[in-house]
């Protein structure tokens, strides 16, 4: 068995009296797709925030590729290869889609010339290729604030992928996406991530998405991992069905 890519041990964090993380132990293996499910307030986003350096746990440790990352700044963690995407996509709303993508590529390449256009030919082509892989190449000239939710999510994730992360943490990649688009969005996303060899952890409320795309499922409950295993096992566990899916199942 290979070493885990991400390894969290004993993460603890409380806000006032609420325990958002109460001893989280989790290993994420290279190449896997791990879904996190659980009711609202269980601490799912808190886990992502701790892993990406936005929240500092009060106890525990996190290692990425064998090195401790706790205490590093969010920017340093990004540069080590942990990307993230958001429940509410974080796009530069007054920029076009291609500018968003090109900025991500420029950030990754560390190219900050103040006098060469962002969209000079070579850059433009690279940005178009990136968007094409996500199936949104037809939207290059659209302003980001004019996109529908599915395209916004894909653009958001495309920007994270532009940084060539080894691990991508996605917070509810399908929330807000119209039901008719949902499967298509996830399929596109999974195809690109698999092709890139990106390991992914994603928070998801849609059990159909989880069942189809996750290699393993972790069930969050009150700051703890209540169950962990392959979807067919976890999603049929009566306790999970009662506590989690009963609350946060199909909308």
């Amino acid at each position: 068995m290979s070493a885990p890519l991400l390894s969290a041990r004993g993460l603890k964090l409380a806000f006032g009296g609420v325990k958002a993380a109460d001893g989280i132990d989790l290993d994420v293996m290279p190449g896997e797709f791990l879904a996190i499910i659980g009711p609202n307030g269980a601490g799912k986003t808190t886990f992502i925030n701790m892993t990406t350096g936005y929240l500092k746990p009060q106890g525990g440790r996190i290692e990425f590729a064998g090195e401790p990352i706790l205490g590093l700044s969010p920017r340093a963690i990004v540069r080590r290869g942990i990307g993230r995407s958001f429940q509410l996509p974080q796009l530069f709303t007054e920029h076009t889609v291609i500018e968003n993508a090109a900025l991500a590529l420029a950030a990754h390449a560390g190219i900050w010339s103040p006098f060469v256009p962002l969209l000079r030919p070579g850059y433009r082509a690279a940005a178009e290729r990136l968007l094409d892989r996500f199936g949104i190449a037809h939207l290059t000239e659209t302003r980001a604030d004019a996109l529908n939710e599915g395209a916004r999510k894909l653009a958001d994730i495309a920007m994270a992928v532009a940084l060539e992360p080894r691990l991508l943490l996605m917070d509810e990649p399908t929330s807000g996406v119209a039901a008719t688009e949902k499967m298509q969005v996830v399929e596109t996303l999974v195809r690109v991530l698999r092709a890139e060899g990106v390991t992914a952890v994603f928070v998801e409320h849609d059990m159909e998405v989880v069942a189809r795309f996750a290699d393993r499922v972790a069930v969050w409950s009150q700051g703890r991992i209540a169950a962990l295993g392959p979807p067919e096992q976890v999603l049929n566990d009566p306790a999970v069905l009662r506590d989690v899916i009963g609350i946060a199942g199909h909308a």
Partner: protein
Amino acid sequence: MVGWLQDNGLLLGLAALDGLAYAALVFMVAVGLNLVFGVLRIVNVAHGSLFAIGAYTAASLGLFFASQGLPPLAGYFALVLAAALVGALLGPLIERFLLRRIYGHEEVLQLLVTFALFMILEDVQKLVWGVQPVSQDLPMTYLGTIDVPFGDDVIPFTKYQLFVLPGIAVATLVGLALFLRRTLAGRMIVAVTADKEAATAMGIDATRIMLLTFTAGAALAALGGALASPTTSLVPGVGAQTIVLSFAVVATAGLGQIEGAALTSLMMGLGRSVAVYFAPEFEVVVPYLIMVAVLLVRPQGLFGVLETRRV
């Protein structure tokens, strides 16, 4: 050191008394700025101009009352009347016709609008009161001075600056705290400050609360100016100094901190007075040095609470 203190002790004592009086005035302006920001989410760049207009109005009213042969006590009435007039006239005018158009807009636009208002009000002062110094110190001279014992010496100091100014500042601090905690209107203001949507959903008329708060803030600034008017001659430019100084207080204390603003006013008032007596070139610099030093160490201000970043 001991020798220096003996030589300069009196001056230091005088600086302390001056600083206290000055701090009281700064606090009056800063607290209004804070209150308005809490509810309207706008830092009003023209807030200092309301201080200046309050001061000019008070001086004019005082001079008018005196010319009518009214007793000196009327001078105090002039101070309060000036604050009430400026608050009640300019407050609603500005809120209703200007600020209400820009709630929820980008901050840069709000800043530009209140800055434009500031430019306008600065010249309104010049048009109405001219550029020659205006002074009406009767409310201060009428009370006379008191000998403040200081070591073996005494410092004669005006009762107005020693008692009236700090007294009113303390009364404002206590009164405001009680008002916000104990009265219905006060609690509504607190509710809107904490969460406008939730407050509106509970049936609070946020529009009205915003109007009232802005008016109250304007009146507090004008009262600060009115109280300051007997202690100095009024010249153009007071508004600019006042807004940056009161902003410095608010930023150093932390946005929204009323008690903190009181302590910070004291600190800056004392710092400034010491500079006035010992290094007058740096009078203006001292409060900002304090601010920069504090913000470098605590970006959220001395008493400010760090807002958790929403991701």
